[in-house]
């Protein structure tokens, strides 16, 4: 090793001086590429209110295709049980699922301090109160969100000419143009582009953010930089500073050299954009770091919002936060189970540790690091869209019914997004800063549903329509005696055109395509389109650009009818 006695190492760059050298120029450079778009030149005035109305969107990608039929369960369809001999979620004895009203929230009536008092003690389908459907018991924490009127469960969502390839389907969900593999930018990217074009130099450097291994297609495009964080805690600095002078020198030269022009090549524009984006966004994340690390603060539940007399989650009144978690013993479980100690009421009052009290499987701790980061970024910065993903939903074998048989089984994965939506509601309600729960919509994406009939490996294969979960204070969910929060999953739902209502039995809805798949009734683009237009504030014209073909009459996305492939679909649902 040469000269290891030298401590004045030079080739390092701090976030701060990297930023100070480049922030002023980079956005202008980034946007200068936009003004070449003729369409843009024509639109001198701001259009719509994306980014101006304070509304935000948080997405969670369920990669691998979540089994919709075992998430929002057609429990009163007699063919459900018979199609899934081992996977079907059994109804609860004595529960009349045709009763209308709020969803059940099964909390054990036993002593919460008892070792038998598990978070997911209930092994049966949870009545949703729409008269037909039920929730998977691992999704029990969706019930309070549902009963607050903040959750829409949209069944039978897909797109025309469904590909049963994961990669095709994910691509179409992200690029917004089904059956087009050449469209290489994403729906949310184009949404942010509309904002950037409108706002020009006034735009925030932080618009769309993902927290996952790499920037997903849904936020990717070559003309404006979206941001991805592999690990939000590592993004606040570049290099390893130990000499401020040297840092200054290194960052100065780096910024200088990065402005030098080169002939255009593939990906060069994208590299340039992301180098600049790195510089402009570093400062934002540096400021967030103490919050992300929860130094001196932490985020806990307050169950009184859901009508409990105590603040403690899930009726678990004896729970106390484990030592070292910084928790407040007068509040409920930690909203973001990023460690085992913060994972539900893991440590029982008598001091014993018990995985039965986890709210999510420990393997999802990284997911909750990411969900927490996405939530904090939306709440503390100008970012408009943030999200993350988690995988494992491709349950071809050993899927698991009501109970888990391994950490990657479907019931365990369900706990992940069930708790996430519950926690996000509490976070944006209890810890509101720049975004409250009314300002945020949380939406899940998944590329398709799974076969109605289970296979010989006790799993399910690729199919067509699945379920989308949409939560937020502004979402049109359950209102007592007015409206249920379940869309497209009830034979008696008169808001659905008669010919599109759920049909039970062996030749019913669950066998609508090829005798074994759910046929779609709603297009995913309608759901995302409504959110982009009616929540984020896009105009219809903007939406037509964000989702090409949205106004195409043959697609029937606005009013419903015979879609491009001949299948009948509903019009927009009015979910926000």
């Amino acid at each position, binding site marked *: *090793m*040469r*000269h*290891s*006695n*030298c401590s*004045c*190492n*030079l*080739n390092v*760059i701090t976030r701060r001086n990297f930023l100070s050298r480049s922030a002023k120029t980079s956005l202008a450079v980034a946007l200068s590429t936009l003004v070449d778009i003729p369409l843009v030149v024509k639109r001198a005035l701001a259009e719509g209110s994306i980014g101006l109305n304070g509304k935000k969107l948080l997405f969670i990608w369920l*990669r691998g295709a979540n089994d919709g039929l075992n998430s929002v369960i057609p429990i009163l369809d007699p063919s459900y049980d018979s199609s899934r001999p081992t996977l079907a979620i059994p109804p609860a004895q004595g529960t009349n699922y045709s009763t209308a009203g709020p969803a059940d929230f099964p909390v054990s009536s036993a002593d919460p301090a008892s070792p038998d008092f598990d978070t997911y003690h209930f092994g049966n389908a949870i009545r949703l109160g729409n008269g037909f459907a039920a929730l998977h018991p691992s999704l029990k924490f969706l019930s309070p969100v549902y009963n607050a009127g903040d959750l829409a469960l949209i069944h039978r969502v897909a797109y025309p000419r469904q590909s049963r*390839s*994961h*990669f095709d389907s994910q691509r179409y969900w992200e690029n917004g143009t089904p*059956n*087009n*593999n050449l469209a*290489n930018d994403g729906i949310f990217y184009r949404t942010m582009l509309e904002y950037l074009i409108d706002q020009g130099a006034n735009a925030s450097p932080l618009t769309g953010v993902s927290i996952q*291994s*790499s920037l997903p*297609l849904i936020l*990717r495009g*070559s003309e404006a930089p*979206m941001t*991805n964080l*592999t690990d939000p805690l*590592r993004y606040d600095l*570049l*290099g*390893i*500073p130990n000499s401020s002078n*040297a840092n200054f*020198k*290194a960052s100065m*030269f780096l910024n*200088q*050299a990065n*402005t*030098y*022009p*080169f*002939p*255009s*090549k*593939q990906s*060069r524009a994208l590299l*340039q954009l992301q180098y600049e*984006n*790195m510089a402009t*966004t570093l400062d934002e994340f540096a400021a967030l770091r103490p919050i992300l690390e929860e130094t001196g603060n932490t985020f806990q539940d307050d169950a009184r919002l859901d009508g409990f007399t105590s603040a403690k989650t899930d009726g678990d009144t004896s729970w106390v936060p484990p030592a070292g978690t910084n928790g407040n013993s007068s509040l409920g479980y930690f909203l973001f189970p990023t460690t085992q100690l913060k994972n539900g009421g893991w440590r029982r009052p008598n001091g014993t540790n018990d995985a039965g009290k986890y709210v999510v499987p420990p393997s999802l701790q990284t997911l909750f690091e990411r969900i927490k980061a996405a939530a904090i970024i939306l709440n503390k910065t100008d970012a408009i869209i943030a999200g993350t993903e988690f995988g494992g939903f491709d349950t*071809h*074998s050993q899927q698991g019914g009501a109970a888990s048989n391994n950490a990657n089984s479907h019931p365990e994965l369900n706990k992940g997004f069930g708790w996430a939506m519950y926690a996000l509601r509490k976070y944006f309600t209890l810890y509101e800063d720049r975004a409250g729960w009314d300002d945020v919509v949380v939406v899940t994406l998944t590329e398709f549903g799974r076969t109605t009939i289970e296979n*010989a*490996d006790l*799993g399910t*294969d*690729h199919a067509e329509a699945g379920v989308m979960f949409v939560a937020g204070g502004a979402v049109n969910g359950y209102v007592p005696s007015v409206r249920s929060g379940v869309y497209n999953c009830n034979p008696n739902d008169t808001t659905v055109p008669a010919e599109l209502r759920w049909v039970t039995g062996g030749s019913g809805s669950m066998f609508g395509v090829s*005798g*074994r798949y759910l046929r779609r009734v709603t297009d995913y683009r309608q759901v995302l389109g409504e959110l982009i237009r009616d929540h984020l504030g896009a105009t219809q014209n903007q939406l037509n650009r964000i989702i090409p073909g949205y106004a195409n009459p043959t697609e029937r996305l606005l009013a419903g009818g015979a879609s491009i492939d001949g299948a009948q679909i509903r019009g927009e649902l009015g979910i926000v």
Partner: protein
Amino acid sequence: MQYRVVVLTVCLGILAPTFLFGADPPTQLDLTVSNTVKTITWPRALLPALDQNRLMAATNITNFAQVPGSNITALASGYTWRTTNSFPGQFYNLELIQLSSNDLLRANVLNRLAYGPTPDELERVAAIGAEAYINEQLAPETIPNPIESYTVVQTNSLGSTPNSNWNIVTVTGTVSSATGPFYMYLREIGNVYIDSVRLSLLFTNITSCVTNTNNVVTCVTNYYLGTNVLVNSDFEQPLGVGWTLGANLVQSSSSPDYACSGNFSCRMVSTAPGSTGGSSIQQNIAAGALINGHRCVLSFAYLPDSDSRLLTLRLSGTGIIGSGMDDSGPPSWIYATFTGQSTGSRFLYGYLSGPGEAWVDDVKLVSGSVAEAGPNLLQNGGFESPLGPPWFAVGNHSGSAIDNTVAYSGSGSLRVLATGNGSGNQTNGNSVVQTGILVTNNGTYTISFWYRPATQGRRVTVRLSGQPADQSPDRLASGFKRRLDAANWGVSLDEMRRWLCQNAVGSSHQLLEVLTQFFENHFVTYHSKTRDFLDPPYNDGPLEDAIATDLEYREVSRWRTALLSPNCTFYDLLKIHAESPAEIIYLDTVGSRGDANNLANENYARELFELFCMGVDNGYDQNDIVAMSRAWTGWTVRIARREHIDNPFAPSVNRNGQGDINLMQFGNYPGLGNSTVSNIIGVWTFIFDQSWHGTNRAPILSEWVPGTPATNPVAMGPKRYAARFGPPWAGRSYQINIPRRTGTNAIQDGYDVIRSLSTNLHTAEYLSVKLCSLFIHDGFPNPTTQTNLPEYAFYDYTNPNRTPEAELIRRCIVTWDQTGGRIRDVLRTIFDSDLFRSHAGSRQKVKTPLEFVISAVRALNSVDAAGQATAFTDGNFSTQLGRMGSMSLFNRADPDGYPEAGPPWISAGTLAERLRFVQTLLTVPAARTNLNGTANGDAGNNTADPVALLKRKLPPPSWNNAGDVADFFLALLFFGEGKANLDLYRVSAVSFLNTADNGTTPSLFSGLSNTGPDYDTRVRGMVSLLMTLQRFQEQ
């Protein structure tokens, strides 16, 4: 005076006549005039790889003269030349001279066929020429590759007298049937010699208490054995004494042929498979000799011959069972050595990576960097004396002891016996430790030792206290390969990744390395899923890791072997994947059944069409998937004896213990009492279970009756090649018609499928698209036969105006069709293409994270004849690849593999990680600290010494010349880019070298002592600067 604007001809200078340019338009020169000053300006970045802007001026259009280059000002905004001459009119001509075609091709081959250039390879390829490099890399079997070559050392097994071939088996268990009987049998017909059978209770006591200087008393638990409860178990008397023989074993006898101890052994002759009672050689145990529930130890020696089969010795019940003959082969002693710096802490540790046993002998610690040169600083390193101070066996290694039955040299060795993960922490850790060693801080020392692994999945570490680097044996590519080849389940996934990455950095078979990663990624499997599959029978993390790694290695090494053959076709590679246990587990074929009313799992069938062969929506549909899925029913993974590793019809057991071997019989680690199931014998391999197979009902790749039943489609005719393929292919049938087969013949269904798919034109097309995306650029969309999609028109080979990309794919398909998919011919077609040899491809690709880290180390890595390198890697990039976009090698969750194209990898967060890696790589290790002062692992154990590199490659007068140093690194890091396009980078680099650390004060590089720290820091900073720039992301 007013001038007319005079013009300009713009011409593209051509140095080599065969050179092809990109379709860049001519450019405009701007001329401004004020009074007598004429200013010519033109923009930057006019052409890729622009080497020179040559401005010519003339007053007569036939008589151009070049203006002096030094008078042209180069700024970020463009180039400017001013003249004050007063000619009334003048012509100007700008010649744009690109990199020569030879230089361009050299850059392309080193960036595409290799993981980027190394300084040495740049020189070598310049000497031999790019064509020779292509030829050489296309025939890797002709080039030696020292990096992963090794020599097998076997010191005490085959080749010596039979008596020394005795294999010793020792197992510990818990007595469940105190009076026995005790059984010995072969599970098939065959012969074997057995000797020295010993069954004893295991007792413990505490001895060797040590009081240290802090008055802490540490005691060592020793194990000792009770008396042997068996009689005549040395077989010195006739077999009738003490033993009862089953009818199938009556030919057995006490034999003088060979003996492990005494003069006789038991010659077991089995005429029918044994199991228990009447089919074994058995002995009842005297009452009271054993105690139910108590731990006991069984040991025996056996001498196999060619007829030996599956020996089992066990006590009735489930308590204690030993087996032989089906382990990984004769034990061999392996030599390991490591040189490093001491921290002055006076402890040396030896330990295992988990519960198990191994033998260690002849441990030597010497001063300096030459193994065994000088006095051994250890006491009793040969283990010829009893294990006493200064040796201590502590923590979960306290059962370790001297063994006088096994030795590399002399008569004794150290038998390391661990009940858990080892660790070094003076005498408080879990290790065999020697204390009080005389070492000095920062002194260089070399450890050497021999070890003989015993428990599968366990690694041996011998190291000095506090040594920063990794001291386990065989940490070079050759060592990893030797251990992987031994298939003794002793290599973890991280170690296999290190084997792969060390090869990627240093192998002379660069194209083979690129192709290995390409096909491994194309035929993706998922290590974690294999581990989950192995969890029920093992419940042992490190062992599951090691076996899953073995399955990954078996497929990768088969691909490498196939690619070393000139005649390797895509069918060969596809067949390896179809037969790979890792794949069968990953894509759920492992449990897929087509018998009775079972619905076959469609996962493999779908991905075989979509991802491995034809490409999505390219000539197949859902009904074909359903029809084809039945062909793979019965292709499963079971455990079979090692000699059956390539026999899909071998007797086997399944995960639930059904079959001819009951997995759960094999309960314990050898030598240990752990209640795990980790010493299952045999090997996990592809097995065809005919009882699970479902006969195909409909031909695959058919046109289907509309409304055909989803689970049992009805065919009405063959699928035919689409019109876009043109003659002679369009309209030709590519249906696969599989006859109804039964029994073991039905395995042929699967081979019929891949044989047909491997030469299907859609496969040729899709694989060519992927290979062109790898070797040329990202602009090859995926093909389709759906006529409404734009890609259909893109790959319409009947279109006379098709793009160069489509034309190259067509040529690849022709080659594929003519050669049956021979890989080298397809690659040759690509490498010979204009696209590969032009600027259309050069530097068009963004490096994947793997390509980025490997190319960064390679760029600074010059190795001299003595093996001294200017950059070092231990091959461990796992953390870095994770941060740069979750590129977890051999562990991709999704079956589409990691993307080859740039955009999925490019985002601010992942780029920040790339910058941090390079910056840390160029930082002196001692200075790698975080803000909080802790060590920074951003570059792991990867280091680079750019000053040593430049002093090796540049003459001394250039060492202090900032321009020369900058030029050297520019040419190294941006090889393939022209000087004109790099001139501003050069300005920055020279300016960096001539600027003090504060970034503003001038400080001439020429004035620095080139052996001083300031010089080193300045060079490191400049190289770091260049490697963090956007252009270094490209290849």
